[in-house]
């Protein structure tokens, strides 16, 4: 799909400016109903389309000429408002492109807008949007959530009838959850594979930039461009990404705990059906266990992520960028407290408080430090399984997309427990992806696959196999 589209753009069969104009109009009407965009950058997109057309004429167009890209709102796009979905950053127009965006632009992909997310990525349903922002709606049932935090990315990927790739981001499951609920493919590479330069950080040691597409084969061409070492992010990987793999018979481990208590029966049924098909094709599928991950994964994830988040958000104090208040007659402490109280939503405040508590003297060793140690244990637990298996599978989410009203009734703890299946690969920084494995009355069910560090190739190979089953 993607390759054919680019070919048509380069040959002139698709008139790019007109095409982009049409796409923008479609997005505008989609947005009215489903609220997938925080910003549609019409002017910039059309300008870019014109430029690319000129380049095509002089045969200088890049590898992704004319590919439509949407960007999760926590990634910086130069001169385009980038709020990470929070009112406190209203008005912040970055002076630079995130490295991933810069690389896409260089290859002449067209950036059409910033997609909705839970403010700063703090959520699993995209219901924790910032003050004054709309909650995006599931295209299958507008009373239901898209999943989060990259809800806009998944939503637009699902409904777009044009060739499009969404640039999304995951910290603890923010690519997998919405991709699963919206029935698209969500792909999250190894930690450090894509430079985080220009990402408005949630939890730096967990944040990973990835992609969402409708088709498996559309992933590699984009991943190839955005991955690779970047001197602006010292945690970015130096090794080149390998996207090709042809292991004869992938050995598959089925995570036992993921099919136990608390999993919706229809979800379990759909996954078991896929396993059956795989076995019939001759793949070895064996039950494996991740006891530490399932016992401690969620608290470990929330302790580390909120500790880091609470320091990342400290810079938002009404100075230099974002929202401001009148400073007259106020001390610095009074001033920044006012800005933060007024413009952060409840979940942002909750995570700042949790994280600040977890790293306070006296609690730090028991919470933050201990969590970092358990994280190492979790990595070891996964590594051990990868000595024997190529891919580990589980459902992506324990449920299908819930109603917005149901999510609002959840306690924070119930809410956080929804991440139980996704925190594992996110804590280990291993590549993982979700792909549709069926549905419950039209509501998509996702299957999640995880491979060892740097094994993006195997993951893509496995996704192709699953795609072929349907």
């Amino acid at each position, binding site marked *: 799909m993607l390759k054919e589209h680019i070919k048509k753009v380069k040959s002139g069969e698709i008139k790019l400016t007109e095409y982009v104009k049409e796409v923008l109009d479609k997005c505008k009407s989609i947005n009215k109903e489903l609220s997938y965009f925080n910003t549609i950058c019409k002017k910039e997109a059309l300008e870019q389309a014109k430029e690319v057309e000129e380049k095509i004429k002089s045969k200088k167009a890049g590898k992704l000429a004319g590919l439509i890209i949407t960007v999760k709102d926590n990634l910086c796009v130069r001169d385009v408002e980038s709020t990470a979905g929070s009112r406190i950053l209203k008005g912040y127009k970055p002076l630079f492109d995130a490295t991933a965006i810069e690389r896409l632009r260089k290859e002449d992909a067209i950036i059409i807008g910033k997609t909705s997310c839970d403010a700063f990525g703090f959520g699993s349903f995209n219901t924790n949007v910032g003050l004054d922002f709309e909650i995006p709606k599931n295209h299958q049932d507008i009373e239901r959530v898209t999943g989060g935090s990259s809800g806009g990315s998944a939503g637009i990927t699902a409904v777009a009838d044009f060739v499009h790739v969404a640039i999304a981001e995951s910290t603890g499951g923010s690519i997998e959850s919405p991709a699963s609920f919206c029935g698209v493919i969500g792909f999250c590479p190894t930690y450090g594979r894509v430079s985080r330069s220009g990402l408005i950080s949630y939890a730096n*040691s967990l944040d990973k930039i990835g992609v969402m597409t409708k088709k498996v084969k559309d992933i590699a061409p984009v991943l190839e461009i955005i991955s690779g070492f970047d001197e602006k992010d010292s945690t970015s990987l130096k090794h080149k990404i390998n996207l090709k793999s042809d292991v004869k018979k992938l050995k598959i481990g089925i995570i036992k705990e993921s099919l136990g208590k608390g999993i919706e029966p229809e979800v379990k049924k759909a996954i078991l059906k896929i396993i059956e098909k795989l076995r019939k094709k001759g793949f070895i599928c064996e039950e494996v266990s991740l006891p530490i991950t399932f016992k401690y994964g969620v608290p470990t994830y929330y302790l580390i992520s909120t500790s880091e988040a609470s*320091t990342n958000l400290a*810079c938002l104090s009404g100075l230099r960028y974002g929202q401001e208040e009148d400073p007259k007659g106020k001390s610095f402490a009074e001033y920044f407290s006012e800005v933060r109280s007024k413009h952060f939503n409840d979940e942002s405040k909750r995570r700042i408080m949790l994280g600040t508590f977890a790293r306070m003297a006296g609690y730090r060793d028991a919470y933050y430090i201990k969590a970092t140690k358990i994280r190492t244990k979790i990595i070891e637990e996964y590594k051990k399984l990868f000595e024997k298996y190529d891919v580990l599978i589980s459902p992506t989410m324990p449920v299908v997309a819930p109603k917005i009203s149901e999510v609002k009734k959840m306690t924070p703890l119930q809410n956080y427990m929804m991440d139980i299946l996704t925190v594992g690969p996110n804590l280990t920084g291993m590549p993982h992806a979700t792909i549709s494995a069926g549905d419950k009355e039209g509501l998509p069910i996702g299957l999640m696959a995880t491979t060892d560090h740097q094994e993006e190739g195997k993951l893509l190979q496995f996704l192709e196999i699953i795609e072929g089953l349907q």
Partner: protein
Amino acid sequence: MKFSSDIVIGLEIHVELDTKTKLFCGCKRRTTEEPNTNVCPICLGHPGTRPVLNKKALASALKLCLALDCDLSKELIFSRKSYFYPDMSKNFQITQFEKPLGSKGKLQLKKGKIVNLTRIHIEEDPAALIYPKGMKGSSYILIDYNRAGNPLVEIVTEPELTSPAEAREFLNQLVSILTYLKIFDINTCTIKADVNVSIKEGNYQRVEIKNISGFKELEKALTYEVTRQKTLLRRGLKVKMETRGWNEAGKTTISLRTKETEADYGYIIEPDLSTIDITDELIEVMQKEIPELAQQKSERFVKEYKLDKVDAQVMAMELELADLFEKVAEKIDPKLAARWLRKELLRVLNYNKKTIREIKFDEKEIIELLSLMQTKTISETTAQRIMEKLMSEKFSPKEYVKKEGLIQVSSESEIRELCRRVIKEQEKAVKDYLAGEEKSFHYLVGQVMKLTKGKANPILTDKVMREELKTAK
């Protein structure tokens, strides 16, 4: 902690490293431009930016740790120190917490005392706060981020210094080492100290003084603070645990805040900077870049040039002076060179309030000057005057002496003639001398010097004057 000395002082010194760029971004370290012009999204803490370590700063800090005999951490890890303050663009400072780059270091003072160093770590400088109407009178403050993100090393000593003068000497020795390592430039880098000081009479209740710049100021602030604490106790009052500031203009320390508990900075590992392994190979490379330091140099000076120990120490303390000395000593008797540089050059520098870096002449002029003296072509008095003149302009002493006719008068008959003339003219002084007044002798010799404009050979003049006075009896 158990202390025995009357005064206990510990230092926390912040040294700005001499690098081209800031610690975590590409902005220049040094700027004389308008406020907030030497900035970028990284040092302004814009969302989406992340720090990238300046490798030169790490190399500099490593060298310092090695020169100060520290145990080195196996890996370099940074932490976020969180507190909300307007001079912090991110409201956290990137510094080191659990594993400082260096720990358990040592610095030796002149008399051989070893001061133990708790830790040495790397951190970023915050922005500068400007109070338009003074600290107390301003209703708003201005922030200048030009220096935000400059590379600093913090050096923390054990509380082992026992007097303000010793603290000053510590700082002096440290600057000498920093200069030798070429990681610090006293003209463009700042050095600031936070000190804690307590006295026996006050049961060693600790008071902290923040942000003192300069050697003299450090000694003054500490002296003031010790006296303040003693006075309090004499009047039956208590020393409070508090943080004070040094008011340079008023020469007093003033209370900034009373500390009830230690501040809680909620440290976490800085997750945007990958851990750097401090490998044996890296250490070896750095070790090779460490030159001979002042202490070793001064020992060598004693051995190689047979210098007096104190002369050698003074000479070695400042790298520029030591280098100048060694160049001069190639051509001139080292002892004369050392004595002359130490006494005369430093005297003249002091008088002109200049540092050795500011002089316009180099070893060539000094060698000429000293060889004129060594060959007794000019008198010491003349040499002193030429040295003073060299402070304001560069010229060849040899040609100057020729041009001005300053060659020493060493003809005995000429000097005898002058001595007789003086004895004749200065009846009263001669009388006083004969009555046993030795002072008058110097006066009479002085008159001969005056007549020759300082050119008379002083030893010869002495001898001839005594002879002539004997006959005058």
